[in-house]
């Protein structure tokens, strides 16, 4: 871990960071771009003097980069504090503007699932890959005229599985859903997919910077022209009345710079990380008996996630041992207490609790290296073997 400007924070020794799906390391170029806006420029971009106009220009430059990344017009980009706020704004905003109901699948991120449930919306099932069940969606749309928003995540945060949004849009169109808005949480998609092509069918798109080398606390909701959306945060009318509050200029500049870099480098990163992912996955299958890929083999996935279940293993124990060997990884989502919670995604996919209890998510990103893969292949197989041996010899209820 690097430190900036002489500020050094004691960081644990991480030899292989395999939790990019949770957050990626910030890119040095992004930090460079942000620093002047943290240190030198005091102004509020809503002001009218020269310093304010400079801040406004920095925000709008970032807006251009995010628009280019998402395949949107700059005026369609609404800056938020991150993915969760973007998701909440999409669900609440459309429901508030239309008076209708939201719908989503049971494998959505809680930032979508919880608002949908709170608003009395419809939660439909998903397939064994964790994608929204289109037949169930058709039934829901046919039986409930009030549905005005369907939210379908572009890439699942736990499994890396890609949803075909064109197919979701076609399903909505087939039931005559002209007044139904399609939202996609593309937080996990941005680093891997060409967004203009993959999320082009969506009316609303959520993004967050820290999944692709940007800072935490900076995100965006793309709101295509004409989509009905009422604001959730009201106040000074920033972001074209769609998200009030003084813009977080340094964070937005960081998001813009990360977007610019991503557009230039994504294809090369995808190719490189795909090779790493394949080597990691093949290595684990070869070295550890009883390893199961969590999603069906033919499922379209991003290169960012290796999601496996190890028979006879408890995730918390494996993660503890991996941490001791300098591997940062995760199992399912973490709850407020920091405990590993049983995954609602795997449960929605029909995976039983015992199998899910042995799951592990190793997530790669732009910063992943061959050395990371080598290290995991060195330390993970003996860790699994140790835990299984212990279970055999000491016995476990």
């Amino acid at each position, binding site marked *: 871990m690097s430190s900036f400007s002489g500020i050094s924070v004691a960081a644990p020794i991480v030899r292989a960071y395999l939790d990019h799906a949770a957050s990626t390391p910030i890119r040095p170029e992004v930090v460079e771009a942000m620093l002047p806006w943290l240190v030198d420029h005091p102004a509020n971009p809503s002001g009218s003097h020269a310093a304010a106009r400079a801040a406004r220009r920095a925000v709008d430059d970032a807006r251009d980069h995010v628009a280019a990344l998402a395949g949107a017009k700059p005026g369609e980009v609404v800056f938020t504090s991150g993915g969760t706020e973007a998701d909440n704004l999409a669900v609440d905003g459309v429901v508030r503007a239309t008076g209708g109901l939201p719908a989503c699948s049971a494998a959505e991120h809680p930032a979508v699932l919880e608002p949908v449930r709170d608003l009395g919306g419809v939660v439909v099932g998903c397939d064994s890959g964790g994608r929204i069940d289109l037949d169930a969606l058709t039934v829901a749309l046919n039986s409930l005229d009030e549905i005005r928003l369907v939210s379908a995540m572009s890439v699942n945060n736990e499994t890396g599985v890609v949803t075909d949004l064109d197919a979701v849009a076609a399903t909505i169109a087939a039931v005559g859903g002209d007044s139904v808005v399609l939202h996609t949480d593309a937080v996990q998609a941005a680093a891997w997919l060409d967004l203009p092509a993959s999320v082009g069918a969506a009316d609303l798109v959520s993004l967050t910077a820290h999944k692709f080398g940007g800072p935490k606390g900076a995100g965006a909701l793309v709101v295509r022209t004409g989509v009905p959306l009422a604001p959730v945060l009201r106040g000074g009318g920033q972001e074209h009345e769609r998200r009030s509050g003084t813009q977080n200029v340094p964070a937005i500049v960081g998001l813009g710079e990360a977007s610019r870099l991503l557009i230039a480098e994504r294809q090369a990163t995808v190719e490189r990380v795909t090779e790493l992912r394949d080597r990691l996955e093949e290595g684990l299958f070869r070295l550890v008996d009883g390893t199961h890929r969590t999603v069906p083999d033919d499922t379209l996935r991003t290169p960012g996630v290796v999601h496996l279940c190890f028979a006879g293993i408890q995730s*918390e*124990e494996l993660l*503890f041992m991996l941490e001791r060997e300098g591997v940062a990884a995760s199992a399912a989502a973490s709850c407020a207490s*920091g*405990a590993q919670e*049983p995954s609602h995604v795997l449960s929605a996919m029909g995976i039983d609790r015992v199998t899910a209890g042995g799951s592990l998510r190793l997530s790669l990103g732009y910063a992943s290296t061959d050395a990371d893969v080598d290290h995991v292949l060195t330390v993970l197989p003996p860790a699994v073997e*140790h*835990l299984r041996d212990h*279970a055999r010899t000491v016995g476990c209820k």
Partner: protein
Amino acid sequence: MVAMSGGVDSSVAAALLCDAGHEVVGVTLRLWGGESDSGCCAVSDVDDARRVADALGIEHHVFNLGDDFNRDVVDPYVADHALGRTPNPCIECNRHIKFTRLRYRASALGFATIATGHHARIVERIDGTRRIARAVDASKDQSYVLHMLDQEQLAGLLLPIGHLTKEDVRERAAAMGLRTADKPDSQDVCFITRERGRDDFLRRRIPLTPGRVVDGTGAELGSVEAVEMVTVGQRKGIATAGGGAPRYAVDVDVASATVTVGSAADLLVDETPVLATTWAAGPVPVGTAIAVQTSAHGATEAAIFDGDAVRWIRPHRRVAPGQAVVFYEGDELIGGATAA
């Protein structure tokens, strides 16, 4: 590996082990996923444990043993109540979760020893065997809830604060600047909320049976809303006609939905049947005189161990079925059982 609940006792336990030069890792167990406003599972308690670990410079982990807790503590708690018994879930949590499941996990992760912040001591006898002994602070003694530990468990356990009074513990925490120094003790069952209570918890899980209240002759005196909620020995809330001398529940029979009440004298028995007996270092012979304690902070009474019962030297209040019956030899625990 120190079990840190986020309270002052386990905070100081961890600190003392650090001082003693042990390699210490703190863990907080997440056991109950439902509503809670008390006990040891609230997120704010996890935060306290984490921040104390940060202050001590030790690693802190949260282990989610919620499935084990439901299976081994909550489900049996509900099932016992359905049978009219009065279980002690904190003891079952110690038995199944802290000293079995956590111990197992600790050993899987390479930790031969676990430690907790219980107020009790571990003493080694001349023959090399170990016993739980009462805490130095008699008013805080928690040896009763540790009665199920055997030699193997005792050999892998440290109780660093058993030789301190509660006041000492708080003073040490304050001296070290630990944020939990003034935190009130938790005393409630972690999965029962103070606001809704036990009635509500059980009502959502099992059908509660309205019952008759009768006296020893079978004469009907009144009614109760739920026989499952009545504890043997209970006086409060037994609506009886007539008045007169105080009446106590002396028997609860869910099958016939009947609570039998009687006088304080009717509550006294010559023996208490027990089951699921455990021993610290092997059983004593039937007929051995032992000191027996039947509530967490009660006194011991002299009794004779009779295999599937304890025979009291002097008549003893009935022990509600499901409660722990704990055997001492002086200050030292030798075993325990559950009242049948």
